């Protein structure tokens, strides 16, 4: 793995950009994919959003000023692309984004790329009922196992606030699961 400073230099140099970008994609594609997938739910949509994310990264890397870590910056782009995507989808269907997400979760049982059992399905439905920020914090902490400091840099939110969000999220999920059926 190349040191971040070196990778950035190579990405911002036209003669080494393509090779460095390949290395970047290789290193981060899976993490970004799974982050996006948890927001958009469908694999095909996640694929579209992931590709758009990398294209955006390719176009904006010259302006990256290393005020945050490269990873945080990319994760933030991925988050914005994914949320914009489902917002657009909700608008097209003329429904609330929360309704959109709950619909997506409900359709998982017939999704070819979902092999979860009943409890995993209920968990997705529970997550879909949470406010957007709590969903993000929950997924990043519980499934991606990111540290609060990392999440703080990505979402530009204080650690204290994130912890509170996470506690609320888990509590609501617990209630939802308990009351299901």
């Amino acid at each position, binding site marked *: 793995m190349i040191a971040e400073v070196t990778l950035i230099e190579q990405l911002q140099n*036209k003669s080494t*950009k*393509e090779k460095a*970008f*390949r290395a970047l*994609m*290789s290193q981060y*594609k*899976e993490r970004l*994919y*799974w982050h996006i*997938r*948890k927001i958009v739910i469908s*694999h095909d949509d996640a*694929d579209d959003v*992931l*590709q758009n994310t*990398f*294209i955006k990264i*390719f*176009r904006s890397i010259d302006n990256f000023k290393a005020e945050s870590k490269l990873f945080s910056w990319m994760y933030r782009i991925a988050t914005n692309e994914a949320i914009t995507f489902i917002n657009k989808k909700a608008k097209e269907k003329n429904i609330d984004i929360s309704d959109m997400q709950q619909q997506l979760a409900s359709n*998982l049982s017939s999704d070819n*790329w*979902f*092999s*979860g*059992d009943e*409890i*995993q*399905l209920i*968990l*997705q439905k529970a997550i879909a009922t949470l406010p957007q920020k709590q969903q993000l914090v929950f997924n990043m902490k*519980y*499934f991606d196992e990111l540290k609060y400091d990392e999440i703080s840099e990505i979402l530009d939110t204080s650690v*204290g606030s994130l*912890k509170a969000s*996470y*506690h609320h999220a*888990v*509590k609501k*999920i*617990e209630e939802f*699961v308990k009351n299901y059926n």
Partner: protein
Amino acid sequence: MKEFNKHNKKELSLNEIKSTGFKTPTNFLDSVEDDFFTKIAEEKLPKTNGFEVPKDYFNSLEDEILKKVPSQTKVINLRSRLKKAIPLAAAASVLLFIGINYFSVQSETITFDDISSTEIENWLENGYTSINTTDLASVLDETDFNDNELIDNTTIEDIEIEDYLNSIDASSLINEIN
């Protein structure tokens, strides 16, 4: 005890130590309960989310994405010259259209008037006028960019313009604006 301390001021007696000197992060103790109940709840949840990906999906990603990013070669000078050629390209493509029509309907002589505006619209809409700038560069040369030539050959009398404007069906213009 007191006498001993007079001579050895650095020595501390246990009676004098009031605090340990240890500190905790701000609000740490407030969150202990929340942390505890959250951990208990987490343990009841599944560890994975059940999402799958198609086999080999990640293997072909880099190549697919690199096809879609802009290429790195600089073609600045040629690009600004080619921009001037766009009106010529538009005219050329319409003439080409006429030419093709001419060859396919040999008994008639086709002029601009014979082509309905709908046909031209369809031609433009179907993208037949999109010309690759590299292809264009290969057929055009310096003389094609001579602006004077264009000006000399297109002197239109005012009366010709008026006649033209009078002949247009006003409704088709209004449709275009809308």
